[in-house]
């Protein structure tokens, strides 16, 4: 397992050896057992594997695990804070933004990146921001509403 890496995932430091070819998504799922991050395609298209690396949404199927050495990674498992749901998680539940749940982690990770850079996006901006995330269940209608819910919530914390 030629390459030693240290990655901080959801606030916890992990060290271990990986093959050069190991994708970050496989490292998260297979090495760390964080199976909330999903794999939906092999062409870097669907976005199911989206995580945050050093604060930015990235497709973890298109980053080598070795490239994450020294990075801070947040996955869906790290979205909630001390047991209280992140507003985006709340939004997806309140607005029925998920059905089968498979694309949901990636959707939420992309949406949080969007809201960080654009706290009050228009519907068009939300739809454009989801270009790299496929959902086959919801027709995106309620995903848009979920993100609007979170945007509102994040602007006026309870």
């Amino acid at each position, binding site marked *: 397992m030629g390459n030693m890496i240290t990655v901080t995932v959801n606030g916890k430091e992990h060290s271990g050896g990986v*093959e050069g*070819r190991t994708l970050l998504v496989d490292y998260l*799922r297979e090495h760390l*057992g*964080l*199976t*909330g*991050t*999903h*794999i*939906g*395609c*092999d*062409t870097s*298209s*669907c976005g*199911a594997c989206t995580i945050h690396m050093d604060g930015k949404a990235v497709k973890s199927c298109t980053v080598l695990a070795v490239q994450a050495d020294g990075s801070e990674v947040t*996955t*869906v*498992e790290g*979205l*909630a804070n001390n047991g209280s*749901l992140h507003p985006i*998680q709340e939004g*997806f*539940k*309140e607005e*029925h933004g*998920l*059905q*089968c*749940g*498979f*694309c*949901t*982690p990636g959707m*939420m990770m992309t949406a949080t990146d969007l809201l960080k850079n654009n706290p009050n996006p228009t*519907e*068009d901006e*939300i*739809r*454009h921001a*989801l*270009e790299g*995330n*496929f*959902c*086959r*269940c*919801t*027709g*995106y*209608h*309620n*995903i*848009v509403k979920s993100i609007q819910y979170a945007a509102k919530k994040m602007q006026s914390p309870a």
Partner: protein
Amino acid sequence: MTNYIGKSVKRVEDKRFITGQGKYTDDIKLNGMMYGYFVRSPYAHAIVKSINIDRASKMPGVNKILVGADIPEAIAGVPCGWQVDFKNGDTMKEPPHPLLVRKKVRHVGDGVAFVVAETRAQAKDAADEVDVDYEILDAVTCPKKATEEGAAQVHEDAPGNLCFDWELGNPKDEVAAAMAAAAHVTELDFSNQRVVPNAIEPRSAIGHYDTAYDKYTLYTSTQNPHLIRLLMCAFVLGIPEHKVRVIGPDVGGGFGSKIFHYAEEALVTWASKELGCPIKWTADRSESFLTDAHGRDHVSNAKMGFDSEGKIVALQAYTYANLGAYLSTFAPAVPTYLHGTLMQGLYTTPKINVDVKAAFTHTCAVDAYRGAGRPEATYLLERLIDLAALEMDMDPAELRFKNFIPAFDGVEQEGYTTQVALQYDSGNYDPVLKRALEMVGYEEFRKEQAAQSNGKLLGIGFSTYIEACGIAPSAVVGALGARAGLFEVAQVRVQPTGKVSVFTGAHSHGQGHETTFAQIVADRMGIGIDDVEIIHGDSDSVAFGMGTYGSRSLAVGGSAIVNSIDKVLEKGAKIAAHLLEASADDLEYAEGKWTVKGTDKSVSFGDVSLTAYVPHNYPEGLEPGLDFNAFYDPANFTYPFGAHVAIVEVDKETGEVKLKRFIAVDDVGNVINPMIVDGQIHGGLAQGIGQAMHEGTVYDETGQLINGSYMDYCMPRADDLPSFEIDRTVTPCPHNPLGVKGAGEAGCIGSTPAVVNAVIDALWKGGFKVKDVPMPMTPERVWTAMNN
């Protein structure tokens, strides 16, 4: 009184999904598990001359490489669950579908070898080193061409590539006579292209043989674990059913593609015993494109005749249906009993004939995909009627009103008997279209359309559809060739403390059963929703089940739950009567307690359930316990209907189509959870719109799927779609206890023709009188339609 039914209760299943704790098959890791990877044919049709595994077998981590010859003869191929015989009575052609091919590959992606290794990467590395020598043969991919003289043959024992031919409705000569007398006939040659279901979770299966118990467990991404167990045990592996447990854990979408029993499931199950370790296989997306059963793929010609008033007098439809290389589980039913039977639509058409030829081709198998047959029927009817309106210069909405079947509730008025073998349960069709027109602002829209002058063409398209779902009365489908019953099973187990566990055979993979079913149970039993748990997806805990497809879970599975609850409450009343020293007939049950009518004497549900399990003071002769199951076999299909309207803008310069608005008014009968029903409609709409505008396989003449990835196959994305404008009417189903009809497929069935009709309308209004733009309506196709 209802506390939950009819309310948008937030989903109980969401918590695990939004926190990343969903458990899908590929998330499961078992001790000592090995990983499988398939060597698949890169050719559509070829003879496998030799397979050399020497080099691959020596690769690091490789445990075993299986080829077709390694599989005992006693293991049969993948079975088909529906038999449709030829018109002349000859038996349907049913060629074998082996787990791994031995001599000949018949589509790109056909399984040739299965490599098992310690890691997935090692399995793939070794798979790349398996050396297969192929002799490439000619291929055929189009179902019509497949039946022509000289076409490449898929199976030796299916001459002319014909699996069966089939016909339904009035005799052809009667239809022809009515057509000849028609004042106007609209005719259309078109195809309903092949699409790929594309559940975002790729298929995955883990086989695990436990020597201690002599028992197999199959974890699989399926819509119906019991059905998989039945098919795999009885028809493929010949293992006793009680020695196999099938678990469908969280499943990331199915849309039909995960109904079917696939070779991979049987292979990992069998191999786990042979190799002595659990084996996991998960498809790459490229593999999903090549091996998940596809949907649609019809090539059709249809004629609709009208009298001078615009009343439809006849319909004749001819369809070539593509079955792919092998018969998938329900494939024969899709172009026949799920398609031909819907040719009445919402109209009073007196003469109808539908003629289908089902052909094998060198392509991936075709089977049910969201709607299954009904979208194809709706597409045919709704394209014809909209086109007829343009040709006859009539308003397309008016033309429909003129032809709608008058309202009937199925109780006071009898169900409507069609020319094509169905009896609709209840229907009231004017209001859905009226409501849709109101939402559109139809008159205003037509004015805006006429005034449009910015290089864009505005168009509006309609679709008024009916579907047959709530699948299905077993005896009826049995008579039509189904090799299984289509009832559903529920068990309501009241725990001693009054908490309720409900076991359902209807698997949930996005539909929200864990919430909707709990709403029903909580209301019917008068308890809190938190006191109810819905369990599904495990053949060892759920007695039996036929699964989730055909918009059947609530209508059939929900009804089974209701019947189980009735049994629980009936027995509970006996226990309550004993405790209250009253007659059971004098009791009424409401809000979780039995009360002696006209008194304040009552006993709670919890006290009764405790008594059932601690039967010290107990009715004589009554069994302890409070646990009942029910098998519900529906009396009829259910028939949701609706009106869909699309508004599009076509860029004259590029042919690009923008979907500006989409209005859907659906009637799915009674609604338990409006939020979830809306969600089902939204998702269906996106898939139906996707077929109209974006999706479709492209096979080249050698049988290569040239758009088998997301870089080439266009999935609808958020910015391809508008927010949907939806509403509904409620016409209850008269024959099931919940009055529900089903909502899973409606959006997908109604929407596709509305979008195409809107583009055709835009083109006609812009002076381009074209009859058809083939789906998907890519910019180039629309541009070509304007520039021919």
